[in-house]
């Protein structure tokens, strides 16, 4: 059975209060189109988890959809900071759980393995650990190893209701090809339902030519949504580079709530879907300028 869905229908079925894990990383392969549609459909009270947050997370938090955020920090790389997230943290408007990159990825790994927790020495001695333990429903515990008595942090597995990643290719069965590093593989595999937005839907015949590139096999996948340029203005290796001008602009507007809201009004609420958004910023001419050179992938 085909797992192909439209962005509108897949977002429509996500309930308020859902736990969503996001797969982007700063300015690369961020599921921006998905997040735009979540904002358009005015979802609320979400829990979001992510290893290193990126532009899509800042948008979702800035638009007020998120109640709880579990992450290891994030940025727009040299373009700037995730100021909508920072602002909500500073004002105490988010239930914030800060981890390190590895402890977050191990929580996803535990979720993907179907085990309830995973031990590590990451976080020991840090202020993140102190703050996490101080929460009234702690997701971490410091325990002795049953084998050598040594001290470890036991991390609770993450089992998001939905994980959402943006990848280069998938077939209608949900076999996902990721080109380049795949920091989001465990995030994808930990979910109860995995939604993959892709640049291009390909045939299973194509998938079978490159089985070594299938980072997420179809058994994990709930829905495949074809959204060309779905990570724009962030980069998709071998498809397009990030749009420098757009990211510089975003790193300016996210410093103020008012400017950020104007950005949402113009680009998210002011367009009916992602195709219209791409048209609005310049369409084919604009995206052609950032098309990847096949010998480099950017």
């Amino acid at each position, binding site marked *: 059975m085909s797992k192909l869905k439209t962005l509108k229908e897949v977002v429509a079925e996500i309930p308020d209060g859902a736990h969503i894990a996001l797969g982007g990383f700063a300015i690369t392969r961020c599921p921006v189109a998905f997040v735009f549609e979540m904002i358009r459909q005015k979802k609320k009270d979400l829990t979001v988890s992510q290893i290193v947050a990126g532009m899509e997370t800042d948008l979702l938090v800035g638009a007020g959809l998120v109640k709880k955020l579990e992450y290891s*920090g994030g940025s727009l*790389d040299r373009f700037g900071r995730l100021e909508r997230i920072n602002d909500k943290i500073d004002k105490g408007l988010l239930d914030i759980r800060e981890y*390190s990159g*590895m402890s977050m990825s191990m929580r996803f*790994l535990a979720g993907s393995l179907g085990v309830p927790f995973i031990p590590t*020495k990451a976080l020991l001695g840090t202020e993140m650990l102190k703050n996490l333990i101080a929460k009234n429903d702690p997701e971490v515990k410091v325990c002795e190893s049953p084998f050598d008595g040594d001290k470890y942090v036991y991390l609770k597995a993450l089992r998001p209701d939905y994980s959402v990643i943006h990848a280069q290719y998938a077939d209608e069965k949900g076999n996902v090809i990721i080109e*380049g590093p795949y920091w989001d593989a465990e995030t994808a595999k930990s979910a109860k339902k995995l939604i993959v937005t892709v640049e291009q839907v390909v045939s299973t015949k194509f998938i079978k030519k490159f089985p070594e590139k299938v980072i997420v096999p179809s058994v994990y996948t709930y829905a495949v949504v074809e959204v060309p340029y779905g990570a724009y203005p962030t980069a998709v*290796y071998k498809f397009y580079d*990030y749009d420098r001008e757009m990211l510089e602009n975003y790193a300016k507007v996210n410093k103020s709530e008012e400017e950020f809201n104007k950005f949402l009004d113009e680009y998210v609420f002011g367009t009916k879907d992602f195709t219209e958004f791409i048209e609005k910023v310049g369409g084919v001419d604009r995206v052609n300028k950032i098309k990847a050179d096949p010998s480099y992938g950017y």
Partner: protein
Amino acid sequence: MVAKYTTNELMAVTASRLLKDGENVVVGLGLPQIAALLAKSTHAPRLNIIYEIGVINPEAEEMGVGIADPRLWNESECFTSFVGTLGSILQKGLIDVGFLGGLQVDKYGNINSTSIKTEKGYRHINGSGGAADIATFSKRLMIIMKHEKRKIIEKVDFLTSVGYLNGRNSRSEAGLPMCQDIKIITNLCVFGFDEEERSLKLLSVHPGITLEEVVENTGVEFKIPEMVKYTEEPTEKEVDLLRNSIDPLKMYIK
């Protein structure tokens, strides 16, 4: 022969000389990456350079805006995941040297990259990313940062990454793996740590900088050896490599 050089070039060269051939290093963007590439093109051709995002030994033709920039992934030897780098390489104990920057560092080498205390309360900046893990599991740590009185201080506003924690044996008592060495390379000097107390100690002052300048620009007391050494200067070959092959667009070498 000693070359004319800039401060950033001196910092990159100093860091690169602390790397040995065959070692595995985790780096971030900027001077750490430049230092690792310089070591690789001089005395350490078999250095393995690992980026936490899941990229091993790339050969970038252009510097990027961060490790998420595909420019940095050019001609890699391996693509993997976060678990593949920070988990089964770093946590397994295979990283010799971790490079870190930060907003603040304290007298025990603890680093803050999360938030800063201001008059209006805390101001969140970035968070850990892989930094805390790199500090926990690398055998040696190299911290590269700008030397300012408000950045090298008694106690960090937020302890993101553990150095020697509260000095002496406190790091291992807290359950962390051993850290053999921590060095801080600034634009004024190189700091190490006293072997007993594990507190900040001056190792060398950059040529042209006085001890007084270092003291004035440091927000915490530190040990000063009887004979203060100067940091060794770059060679012409090193400066030439930095300018003409490693960072020709001068993105990080200014």
